[in-house]
């Protein structure tokens, strides 16, 4: 099968999964709550407002029509309005999602690079004290309770040493004064560093251990003996022959790690009061702001699906053997 057909078949699969997941969300919000309309209506609304929403989402219609309207509204980007403040859910999500992606992608890329580099190096020096130290360290951070490490960092670096702010993404006093762009960026980075470090410390261990195991498997392959027999330089054997092949399973793991990093995002954003999608879904659920919960969950799922798709394609490019 050609690459194009492979991509097409993956796209179709993902679209099917997307519809199934969206249907599950639809059912979750309509079947489980005691009052099936509660996910869109709140007692404090005026009678007219209630009627308008009933109209828009077809709450008086049979469930099949509701299902149709649900998707229709979804594709028009209409998730209704938040119960709190009445803002359009879509606008809130857009803004929060951007904040999350900014933090999470920076963190994932950094921990990926650090994890792979260290993992490669310690696999090459297997059996050494350095290897044991890093394996222990990686395991410890990998299983550490995310919010706790975040709180510890806040306590030490923000509360005790006053090096960083105690949370948030920007200092509003600074931004109200209408500063220059550079000042704005510096303020943002100042807020970003602590959550970012927490992320990286927690995650590099996982990638590092994965890369180490994968390298150790690869180093036993016959082509490594060939590479040595050819008289290649140590560095070339390690980087071009061993690490290149060892990377393949790491790419697959990337798809899984996306889901994992969203879990991390929910916790870290809560600890650092980062206005991202993870914190949004927690707060909205606690307030029973159902339109926002539903919208946020749908968007997170879509992002995970897209990330899975990208990982699949990357794998196909990296491994010429793949039978699409």
């Amino acid at each position, binding site marked *: 099968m050609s690459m194009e057909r492979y991509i097409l078949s993956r796209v179709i699969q993902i679209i099917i999964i997307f519809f199934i997941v969206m249907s599950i969300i639809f059912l979750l919000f309509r079947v489980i709550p005691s009052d099936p309309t509660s996910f869109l209506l709140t007692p404090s609304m005026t009678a007219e407002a209630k009627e308008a929403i009933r109209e828009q989402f077809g709450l008086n219609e049979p469930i099949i029509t509701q299902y149709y309207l649900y998707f229709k509204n979804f594709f028009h980007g209409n998730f209704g309005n938040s119960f709190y403040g009445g803002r359009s859910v879509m606008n809130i999500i857009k803004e929060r999602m951007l904040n999350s992606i900014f933090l999470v992608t920076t963190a994932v890329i950094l921990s990926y690079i650090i994890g792979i580099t260290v993992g490669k190096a310690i696999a090459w020096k297997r*059996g050494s004290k350095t290897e044991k130290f890093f394996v222990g360290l990686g395991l410890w951070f990998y299983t550490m309770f995310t919010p*706790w*490490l975040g709180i510890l960092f806040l*306590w030490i670096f923000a509360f005790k040493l006053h090096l960083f702010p105690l949370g948030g993404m920007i200092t509003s006093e600074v931004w109200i004064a209408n500063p220059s762009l550079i000042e704005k960026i510096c303020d943002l980075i100042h807020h970003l560093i602590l959550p970012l470090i927490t992320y990286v410390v927690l995650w590099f261990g996982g990638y590092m251990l994965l890369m180490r195991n994968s390298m150790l498997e690869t180093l036993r392959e016959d082509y490594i003996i060939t590479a040595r027999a050819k008289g290649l330089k140590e560095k070339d054997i390690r980087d071009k022959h061993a690490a290149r092949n060892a990377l393949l399973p790491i790419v697959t793991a990337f798809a899984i790690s996306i889901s994992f990093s969203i*879990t991390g995002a929910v916790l870290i954003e809560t600890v650092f009061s980062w206005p991202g999608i993870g914190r949004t879904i927690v707060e909205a659920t606690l307030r029973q702001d159902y339109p926002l919960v539903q919208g946020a969950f749908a968007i997170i*799922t879509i992002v995970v699906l897209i990330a*899975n798709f990208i990982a699949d394609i990357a794998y196909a490019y990296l491994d010429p053997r793949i039978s699409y």
Partner: protein
Amino acid sequence: MKKKKWKLIRQIWDLIRGSTFIKLGVSIIIIFGIMAVFSPIWVNRNPEIYDPIIGVDPDVHGSEGPSLKHPLGTDYIGKDLFSQLLRGSQIAFILGIMVSVLSTTIGTIVGLVAGYYGRIVDIILMRLADIILTLPRLPLLIVISGIFGTQSNWIILLILSFTFWPTISRVIRSQTLSLRERPFIESAKVSGVGNRRIILRHLAPNVLPITFYYLTVTVTGAILVEAGLSFLGFGDPSNMSWGMMLKWCFTTGYVFKAPYWMIPPGLCISALAFSFYLIGVGLEEIVNPRLKKR
């Protein structure tokens, strides 16, 4: 025959004893086990003061630091933090192990069935696993517990297991697929052994090492996710888990003022999760000796 089996068990035991990872992991677990057992003894001396949920020390106002009466201090309304910590270890053990047993059992059975029968059974089960794996775990758990309204540890147990089995079943399935082609399965089939017997007698023992590995690492996952849920405020309010201790510390404004309150629960969660994972890594090295230096 029996003697041979005995020898195999001896060999496995020697390997386990030789693993630093497993020894360290088991030692930590024993410490927490003692804590869990000690919990009722500590509380029953005076439940009115020491009960982790309803007990309050009337002499204490606000959170106070460690003292003889309260070795770890008290929380914001004068509850004993040490009894909360002890109770937390009970919950972590029970929940972690139950989720792990439940999801590993489901995962192993589904993996064996999908891998052995193949075709439509395989497609349906694995697509289902794919869909659950695609759903972001923590947000899903948050949304489900939000919709259920009141949370209880039983619901948390069920929904945690629901999100953990697919990973295991995928690994078991791929193992089953390769086992299915082996001569001993072929010969069992040819000699007319029933499907159920082949799965139970021939396939299941061969995937057991992987099952054991997942049995331990899933405990880690379950402990961390449950703690995360409780920390975010979706825990069982009728009980006091470590995640909830940290949540109260964080939300009542004592987080930076009371390190005696903030440090122990997080440390316990991390250490217990770490210990189960260590055992998993130790098992992995025994099963897959390539990872270890000769």
